[in-house]
């Protein structure tokens, strides 16, 4: 009886259509590419909030922070010389893109069923521009700040 009763509990509460879709995978991809893991985490966590699964997805924020701080710390503690000596110049930007897109791949894997749900039901995602631009600008600012502190 208990499981059936739980089915008859309201899920949507007093909220209406605003929280019935999440930011698209396209937004997540572009934001992660240009802004790195931190920016990708902003979109992922906002989506998690809209899906009411922030309690499950919050480690994504910690992971994004670690994926930003760890490489930066290593870079300014001798990693830069090692990379230049072994691979050459310009690898920092490439590593930043790889980390960003890797983070996006992880988030996409976690939220894939919701993206597919939206695709199959023809649900329109909210415009990703305002949040996407804010996430990229904010993330780049944090990255520069961290680089200044760690260097």
């Amino acid at each position: 009886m208990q499981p059936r009763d739980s089915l008859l509990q309201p899920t949507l509460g007093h909220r209406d259509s605003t929280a019935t879709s999440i930011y698209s995978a396209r937004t997540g991809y572009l934001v992660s590419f240009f802004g790195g893991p931190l920016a990708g985490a902003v979109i992922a966590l906002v989506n998690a909030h809209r899906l009411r699964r922030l309690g499950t997805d919050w480690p994504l924020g910690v992971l994004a922070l670690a994926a930003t701080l760890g490489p930066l710390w290593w870079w300014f503690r001798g990693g830069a010389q090692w990379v230049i000596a072994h691979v050459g110049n310009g690898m920092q930007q490439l590593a930043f893109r790889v980390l960003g897109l890797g983070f996006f791949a992880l988030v996409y894997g976690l939220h894939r069923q919701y993206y597919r749900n939206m695709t199959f039901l023809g649900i329109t995602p909210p415009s990703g521009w305002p949040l996407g631009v804010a996430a990229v600008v904010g993330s780049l600012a944090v990255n520069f700040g961290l680089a200044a502190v760690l260097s």
Partner: protein
Amino acid sequence: MSSDSGVRRDLATIEHEARALIERHRYSQAQFTVSRGLKEFPESVELQYLAAFIDYASGRQDSAMQGIKTLLSQAPQHYGARTLYAHLLDDAKHLAEAERVWIDLLRDYPQSADCFAGYGELMLKTLNLDKAQRLAQEGLRQSPEHPGCLYLAAMIDLIRNRRGAQSEHLQRLLREHPEQARSAIALAVALSANGNDRGALRIAQELLRHQPDSQNLVGFVRELKTRTHWTMLPLYPMRRWGWSAAIAITLLGIIGLRLGERTLPPPVFETLTWLWLGYVIYSWTWPRLLHRIL
């Protein structure tokens, strides 16, 4: 006494005729029949419900909503009127209110598979997949071959599983209800999910011929026409492997050009750079443009 039974028979005949026309999707004829009936029996709750249903099925949502509210003020427990009200609220994006109506209906009709399917679809539309699945399961427990619950369960299989075309629910839906438009829609979605967009397009176009007013179908056909357009051929990797292919192409392009900058003659390197940039821009812009054009 005889005239009273004659009046009742007339009302029953009108209702029967209107229902038969609605079942055959002949809404303009059904509306004529119902309007004529309402002139003779203005107090008939059933005819008022059918009038609202015809408005709903014909896309006149405002008129249907007005009719159903009037009807519910007279007969608040009318099952059909309440389910139609829930669908209308759902369409009007009053989702929390629609949920309340579905829950009230399920409390009053705990064995109604229709209500489990209706509430489940609302949950699916609001991305509450787990609850939608549990509602579909409960509905199928009440009525194992219910088309609405089978459709819901098949769609959830497709969403959760890339190999959704092998879904047991989809197979049962196609086997038990081959005549239903929903079966065809679920099949088209399954074909598309498995990369057979051309097959899906043929089914969707056929459905659209029978339901030319369906905005959902129009959108689905447009999407499939975009995906099967010949100009989308260069984007096959993205269509086939999705975001994994987009990530691979982006990163391989950046790494390849970085290596090429040192090893290739400048004209070759520049040509390759422009080709790659062009491809990336094409992949991000052309599908959207094409979708608007088609």
